[in-house]
C-alpha cells in the first residue's frame, strides 16, 4: 500500500530550506479558519503549544488529555533546561553549531533538514517564552543566564532552576487557558484517545473514553494532531509518569501510520536504583552530579554487601576513570549507562538486588568542603534522602541507569505529517529530530518548536485542500471504530482471570529491559520475540480486571494501555533485530569496536526504519527512508 517513503524535504541550501518552504505553503484565510476543527491529543509542551497557537490563529480546536488538567502533562517533570542558539554568551554558538551538535549527538541517524530547522526556530522559542512570563534564570544585569549542559562546548541552555519543564509547560498551559476562555479551544481533560478514525485514507477523527464516566465518544475533525509523548513505560519502570503510554500512537499505527525506529530508547545513567519489587517508578537525579561525584563498585564481588566505608581505597574499582581516562566520570550517557550494567552483570553491583553503583562525594567534600557541595547539589541530596532515607554527605549515593526518553515514534515527513494524510505527530511522539540519541535540553526545544512554530505553518497547508470535507461522526467509519473500541474493552473485562495487571506489566518490563534495554544482541532479541507473544497470551487468558466499562475504572484504563505495550514490545524487538548495527543508544553487542564502543554501519543502516502494520499475527512490513548527508561528514565518536 505504501510506496517509497517521501520525506518531502525542500530543495535548496540547508539554511534556506525552511524559509523558502514557508513561502510556498498554502494558507487558510482568517474568515475560513473557524470552519476547520482540529483535534489535538495531548497537552504537554508540544500539544499545549500547538492547541493554543492554532486556537489563537482562529481554528476551532478540541484538545484532549488523560490527566485531570493540561498542566500536569509529563513535560512538567523535565529538569535541566532548553537549548537555543542565541549566542548570548558570545562564546561562538550559532544555529549551525546547535544543528551540528544535535545531529552528531544523534549519531547521524536523523534528517539534516529537520534538525537544522529545529536549531533555527530555537531562538524564537526563547523570545516567545520570555514574553509569556516564563521566569528563566537571569544575571544581575537583568539579562538571561545560560549554562553549559550535557558536555556542550558552549553555554546555550536556558533554565528555570531545576524546573524548566514545569515553567515552560505552565507558559503554554496559560496560553491554552486563554484560548479556552476565548472559546477557540475546547478542553477535554480526563479523556483518553482509544482509536484513530480514517475516512477515505485521511485521518478525520478519534474515538475517546472519558476516564471519569467511562463514556465512549466520537469526535470528527479536519485533521488530527498526536502529541502523546513517548513509550518508555513499556519497560514498566522508567522515569516517565505512571500514566504515560503508547496507546494513541500504537492505535494510529494499527490504522496505517508507520512507526519509525521504535528500538531507539534513551537510558539515563543517574537515577535512584530500584529498591524493591513494588516500586512503581524511577526518579532521575540530575546528571550534573557527575561533575563532582566519583563512580565506583568493589573490585571483588564478595565485598558488595559490605558497608562502603569498610571497603578500602585499593579494593575499589573506579571503572569509568579506569576505562575512559580523559572523560572519566563525565563519559556520555550511553557509555556510562552500559558500563554500570557491565559491572552489575559481573556481580559487583551494590545495594538491594545488586543493581546499583556508588556515586561518591567524599573526595569532593574533602577538597571543597561540605558547604560548597551543599550549595551545588543541596536540593538533589534532599530528594535522595527523601527517597532512600540515606544521607549522601555521609555515605555514597547509589545510582543506576533508567529509561527516560524514546527517540522512536510515528514516522512524519518534513511537514510533521505521517503517511496517513491529515495525521500530524509532534513532540516526543514523532521520531524526527533526535536520531539514535537525544542531547540534554533538546526535548523541550523540540516540543515547543513543533507546537509554536512548525505545525501552525504546515497544518494549514493540508487544511487548505480540505474545505468542507469533515465527515459526520455518524458516518460508518466512526460507528465501526467505536464498535471495535467497545468490543475490545468488553474483551478485557471478559477475561476474568487470576493474574494482576501489574504482575504482567512488570514481567514484560523486566524482559524488555533485559533483552532490548541498554545493550541488545540477536539471540536475546529472538528470545524476546518468542516470549512477548506468550506473555500477551497470558494477558488475554488470565488477566484480572474488575468492575465495568461504563464507570470510573482505573484498572480498566491501565489494562488497555498494557495490552498495547504487549503488542508494541514485539515491534520494538523486531526493529532492534533489524537494525544490525550499533548507533547511539542502540548498542548491539555484535557490533562494537575492539575497545567496546558502538560501531555504526553507515553503508547499510544510514536510514530510518519505518514499520507498517499488517494483520494481527503477521510480521510488520519494513520501509526504509535513506538518510542523505549533504552538509555534515559522518564521524565515529570517541571518548577515550
Amino acid at each position: 500500500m505504501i510506496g517509497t517513503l517521501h520525506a518531502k524535504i525542500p530543495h535548496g541550501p540547508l539554511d534556506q530550506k525552511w524559509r523558502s518552504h514557508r513561502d510556498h505553503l498554502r494558507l487558510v484565510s482568517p474568515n475560513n479558519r473557524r470552519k476547520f476543527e482540529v483535534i489535538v491529543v495531548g497537552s504537554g509542551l508540544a500539544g499545549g503549544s500547538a492547541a493554543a497557537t492554532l486556537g489563537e490563529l482562529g481554528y476551532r480546536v478540541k484538545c484532549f488529555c488523560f490527566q485531570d488538567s493540561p498542566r500536569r502533562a509529563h513535560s512538567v517533570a523535565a529538569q535541566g533546561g532548553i537549548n537555543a542558539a542565541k549566542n548570548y554568551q558570545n562564546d561562538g554558538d550559532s544555529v549551525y553549531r546547535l544543528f551540528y551538535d544535535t545531529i552528531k549527538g544523534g549519531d547521524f541517524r536523523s534528517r539534516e533538514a529537520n534538525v537544522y530547522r529545529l536549531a533555527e526556530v530555537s531562538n524564537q522559542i526563547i523570545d516567545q517564552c520570555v514574553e509569556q512570563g516564563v521566569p528563566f534564570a537571569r544575571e544581575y544585569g537583568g539579562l538571561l543566564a545560560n549554562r553549559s549542559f550535557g558536555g556542550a562546548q558552549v553555554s546555550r541552555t536556558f533554565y528555570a532552576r531545576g524546573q524548566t519543564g514545569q515553567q515552560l509547560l505552565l507558559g503554554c498551559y496559560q496560553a491554552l487557558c486563554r484560548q479556552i476562555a476565548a472559546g477557540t479551544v475546547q478542553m477535554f481533560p480526563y479523556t483518553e484517545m482509544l482509536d484513530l478514525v480514517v475516512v477515505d485514507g485521511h485521518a478525520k477523527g478519534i474515538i475517546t473514553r472519558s476516564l471519569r464516566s467511562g463514556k465512549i465518544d466520537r469526535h470528527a475533525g479536519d485533521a488530527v494532531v498526536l502529541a502523546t509523548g513517548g513509550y518508555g513505560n513499556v519497560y514498566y519502570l522508567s522515569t516517565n509518569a505512571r500514566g504515560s503510554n503508547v496507546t494513541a500512537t500504537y492505535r494510529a499505527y494499527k490504522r496505517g501510520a508507520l512507526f519509525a525506529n521504535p528500538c531507539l530508547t534513551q537510558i539515563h545513567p543517574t537515577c535512584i536504583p530500584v529498591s524493591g519489587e513494588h516500586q512503581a517508578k524511577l526518579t532521575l537525579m540530575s546528571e550534573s552530579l557527575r561533575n563532582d561525584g566519583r563512580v565506583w563498585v568493589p573490585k571483588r564481588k564478595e565485598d558488595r554487601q559490605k558497608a562502603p566505608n569498610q571497603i578500602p581505597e585499593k579494593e575499589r574499582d573506579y571503572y569509568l576513570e579506569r576505562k575512559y581516562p580523559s572523560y572519566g566520570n563525565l563519559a556520555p550517557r550511553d557509555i556510562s549507562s552500559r558500563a554500570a550494567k557491565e559491572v552489575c552483570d559481573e556481580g559487583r553491583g551494590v545495594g538491594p538486588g545488586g543493581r546499583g553503583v556508588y556515586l561518591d562525594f567524599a573526595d569532593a567534600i574533602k577538597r571543597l568542603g561540605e558547604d560548597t557541595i551543599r550549595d551545588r547539589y543541596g536540593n538533589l541530596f534532599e530528594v535522595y534522602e527523601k527517597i532512600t532515607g540515606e544521607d549522601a554527605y555521609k555515605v555514597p549515593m547509589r545510582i543506576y541507569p533508567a529509561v527516560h526518553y524514546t527517540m522512536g515514534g510515528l514516522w512524519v515527513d518534513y511537514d510533521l505529517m505521517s503517511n496517513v494524510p491529515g495525521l500530524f505527530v509532534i513532540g516526543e511522539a514523532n521520531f524526527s529530530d533526535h536520531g539514535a540519541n537525544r542531547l540534554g535540553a533538546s526535548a523541550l526545544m523540540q516540543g515547543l518548536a513543533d507546537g509554536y512554530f512548525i505545525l501552525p505553518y504546515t497544518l494549514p497547508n493540508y487544511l487548505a485542500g480540505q474545505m468542507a470535507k469533515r465527515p459526520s461522526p455518524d458516518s460508518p467509519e466512526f460507528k465501526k471504530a467505536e464498535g471495535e473500541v467497545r468490543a475490545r474493552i468488553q474483551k478485557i473485562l471478559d477475561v476474568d482471570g487470576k493474574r494482576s495487571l501489574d504482575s504482567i506489566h512488570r514481567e514484560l518490563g523486566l524482559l524488555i529491559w533485559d533483552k532490548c534495554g541498554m545493550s541488545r544482541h540477536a539471540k536475546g532479541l529472538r528470545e524476546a520475540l518468542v516470549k512477548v507473544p506468550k506473555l500477551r497470551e497470558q494477558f488475554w487468558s488470565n488477566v484480572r480486571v474488575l468492575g465495568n466499562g461504563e464507570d470510573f475504572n482505573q484498572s480498566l484504563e491501565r489494562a488497555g494501555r498494557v495490552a498495547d505495550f504487549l503488542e508494541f514490545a514485539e515491534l520494538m524487538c523486531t526493529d532492534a533485530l533489524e537494525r544490525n548495527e550499533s548507533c547511539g543508544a542502540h548498542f548491539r553487542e555484535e557490533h562494537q569496536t575492539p575497545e567496546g564502543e558502538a560501531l555504526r554501519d553507515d553503508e547499510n543502516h544510514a536510514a530510518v526504519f519505518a514499520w507498517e502494520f499488517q494483520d494481527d499475527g503477521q510480521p510488520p512490513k519494513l520501509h526504509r527512508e535513506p538518510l542523505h548527508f549533504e552538509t555534515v561528514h559522518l564521524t565515529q565518536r570517541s571518548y577515550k
Partner: protein
Amino acid sequence: MNFRLRIWRQKNRQAHGKLVDYDVRDISPNTSFLEMLDILNENLLQRGEEPIAFDSDCREGICGTCSLTINGEAHGPDHPGAVCELYMRKFRDGATITIEPFRVGAFPIVKDLVIDRTALDRIVQAGGFISARAGSAPEANSIPVPKHDADLAMEAAACIGCGACAAACPNGSAMLFTSAKVSHLALLPQGHPERESRVLKMVQVMDAEGFGNCTNTYECEAVCPAEISASVIAKLNREYARAALQRGAGE
C-alpha cells in the same frame, strides 16, 4: 512494617462515603506511600474487592496530581513534599493511618480519594496568563528584568497546582494558589499591561467557584509542597486594592 489503614470510600459524587479499615503487612520502610496503596490494591484485587481509586502521575512531586489528606494533614506529615514523595519510614510500625481526599467544597469527590479540581483551571482561565501571540514576541533580552524580581517570580511560579492550600485552609480558600499566579505575573514587566484586569477577574472567579475567604491562618503555607510563601497573599491584596482604586478612578 504493618499498618492499619482507615480509608475513605465513596462510590461516586452523589453517594455517601465512609471510612473503611484495611490492614497491610510486611511493608518495607523504603516503600513510598502511594506504592503502599498499590500493594493494598493488588491484595484487594486478589480478593475480588474493588481497588481504591486514587490519583497520581509523575510520582516525583512536580505534576500536582496526588491529593491525599493523611491523618488530617494535606500531603501527610513530611513537609514540604507531595504525597508521592512520602515514604513509609516516616510512620511508626503498627500505626493506624487515616487517608481521606482533599476536602474542599469547590473540589467535589469523584470516587474514593479522587477529586475534581477543575475549579483551579477556571481561575487561571479567568486571567492567569499574559496575552502573547506566538510569532509576535520581541527579542528575549530586549527587556531586562532585575534578578531579584525574576527570582521572586520563580518562587511564586513554582506552584504545582495540587490544591493542598485549599485543603488545609479551615475556610477552603484558594488564596495561596491564586496569589501565587497573580504575583508571578505582576512581578514581571511582561505581565504589567494586563495587571489590573487579571487580579480582578481571577479573584471574581475564585469567589464564584465557592472557595472561602482568607483569614490569615497560614495553614496553606505549612502544607505547600512547593514552599510558596504566604507573603504572596499580601501581594495579591495590594494588587487587588491597586486595581480596584484604578478602576474606580477611571469610572
